[in-house]
């Protein structure tokens, strides 16, 4: 079974040429723009790709549009962490020889809405029957629902929640591609427009256009590409519920707590091995839940941990170093951008580079705490 001892590497990674507001591209073309940039990054052509994974569009559409004839596809679509899960599935496919070179694409016209179907809610679904009638208006009124319970149980303050956005803006300030770069204070956050109490505008993710793509192959080929390879050390995935109202515990994500530790144990790492961390931040409470569900902080301790600067520039656990969904960009399914930042950090090419970053953990969420995927990556092959 020596084939299974092989490893997988990310050998191509790129985002769309532009990020932010891209009114002259359809959602499909955002996928393609990112894919073409990733192919160029890896020195490959579409005909070199034999595996396609995507979410938001069908792999059929992506393969046809790019002129790829795949013999492996994955259309897992469980929200913004789908791309972490695609990485996990691609590892299994590559190590069992089902295909040799996988392209994972994301594109989303989240701001401009170009070439994007207007999905009407399904009134027969469980969410349609038991949540939609009560006035939910998208993620700001659903993803946010658990946090008052967290605040009461653990004493998290409004100021600590605001601090998540403040710290991520510090990272974004070092990133020329970040949508929001001017420094902000806790007072700025708390005086920004209320969106859904207790969440203010600056505690909610941006709404932007963009895309990203990754190319993966087996590690024995990783030296054949122009960029330094990034090795996939471990992965995890899980789902919990399509209804935020049915989370088992409003103060913890079960999907995080399954996917994250699984990825870290697969990678054979402990918390002290982690140089760099990405936690999908659709809203300011996500990094708090993620830090605790991953085990970097005890229950109820993550708000103070962030407030004390441990995840800020210069801190020992650099977190969301691109500025995150709160300040870098958020097209809707942000997971791809978190993966891109992990790759940049391990290549040593990030705008806010963490000195000597060798191990990165990238935790994604899908839906409203509905799903999670986690990828642990290293700048060297796993020992």
């Amino acid at each position, binding site marked *: 079974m020596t084939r299974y001892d092989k490893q997988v590497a990310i050998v191509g990674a790129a985002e769309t040429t532009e990020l932010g507001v891209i009114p002259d591209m359809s959602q499909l073309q955002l996928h393609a723009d990112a894919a073409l940039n990733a192919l160029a990054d890896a020195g490959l052509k579409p005909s070199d790709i034999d595996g396609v994974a995507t979410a938001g569009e069908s792999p059929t559409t992506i393969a046809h549009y790019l002129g790829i004839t795949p013999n492996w596809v994955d259309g897992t679509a469980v929200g913004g962490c789908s791309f972490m899960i695609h990485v996990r599935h691609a590892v299994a496919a590559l190590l069992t020889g089902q295909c040799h070179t996988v392209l994972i694409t994301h594109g989303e016209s989240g701001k401009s809405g170009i070439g994007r179907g207007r999905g009407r809610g399904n*009134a027969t679904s469980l969410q*349609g029957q038991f949540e*939609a009638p*009560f*006035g*939910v208006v998208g993620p700001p009124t659903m993803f*946010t629902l658990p946090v008052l*319970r967290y605040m009461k149980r653990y004493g998290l303050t409004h100021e600590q929640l605001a601090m998540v956005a403040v710290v991520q803006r510090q990272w974004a300030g070092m990133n020329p591609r970040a949508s929001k770069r001017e420094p902000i204070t806790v007072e700025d956050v708390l005086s920004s427009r209320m969106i*859904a109490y207790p969440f203010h505008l600056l505690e909610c993710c941006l709404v932007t256009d963009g895309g990203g793509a990754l190319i993966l192959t087996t590690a024995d080929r990783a030296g054949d590409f122009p960029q330094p390879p990034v090795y996939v050390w471990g992965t995890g995935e899980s789902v919990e519920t399509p209804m935020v*109202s049915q989370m088992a515990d409003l103060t913890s994500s079960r999907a995080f707590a399954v996917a994250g530790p699984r990825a870290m144990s697969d990678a054979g790492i402990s918390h002290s091995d982690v140089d760099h961390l990405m936690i999908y931040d659709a809203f300011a409470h996500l990094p708090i839940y993620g830090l605790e569900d991953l085990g970097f902080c005890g229950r109820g301790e993550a708000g103070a941990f962030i407030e004390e600067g441990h995840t800020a520039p210069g801190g020992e656990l650099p977190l969301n170093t691109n500025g995150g969904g709160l300040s870098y960009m958020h097209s809707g399914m942000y997971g791809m951008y978190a993966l891109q930042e992990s790759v940049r950090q391990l290549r040593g090419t990030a705008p806010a580079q963490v000195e000597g970053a060798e191990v990165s953990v990238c935790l994604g969420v899908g839906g409203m705490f509905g799903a999670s995927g986690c990828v642990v990556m290293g700048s060297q092959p796993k020992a």
Partner: protein
Amino acid sequence: MSGSRPLPEPTPETQHFWDGTRAGELRLQRCDDCAHVYFPPRPFCPACASRSVSVFAASGRARLDSYVINHRPHPAFEGHYAIALVELEEGPRMMSNIVSCEQTPEALVLDMPLEVTFEPQNDSITLPLFRPAAEGSKT
């Protein structure tokens, strides 16, 4: 209400729930084998997979588990309104709205006792909403 809410379309598995709200009952299901009480409706127990389950009328008593107060417009609501998670006395949690109560953080206190009230939307759909429990009622 200035406009209508997006209304549920019952399925065979949930029809009893929506028949119940129209009849003034909050109907839950209990497993005949392991006694687990659960929501949302389905014709089997999510704890033990038994297909032997019974529908019963819940007490309608609940406590406020968590909420947000939405400040963005919704055609069916006027002004800011709370979207609430309530934990029923029997255990399950459900989403709803809190009526007969100011929609402010000061008035909406976590763990406050609530009781169900039913608001007809049309001939077939009645929504279960919650209001602060009357004096003397226990949760």
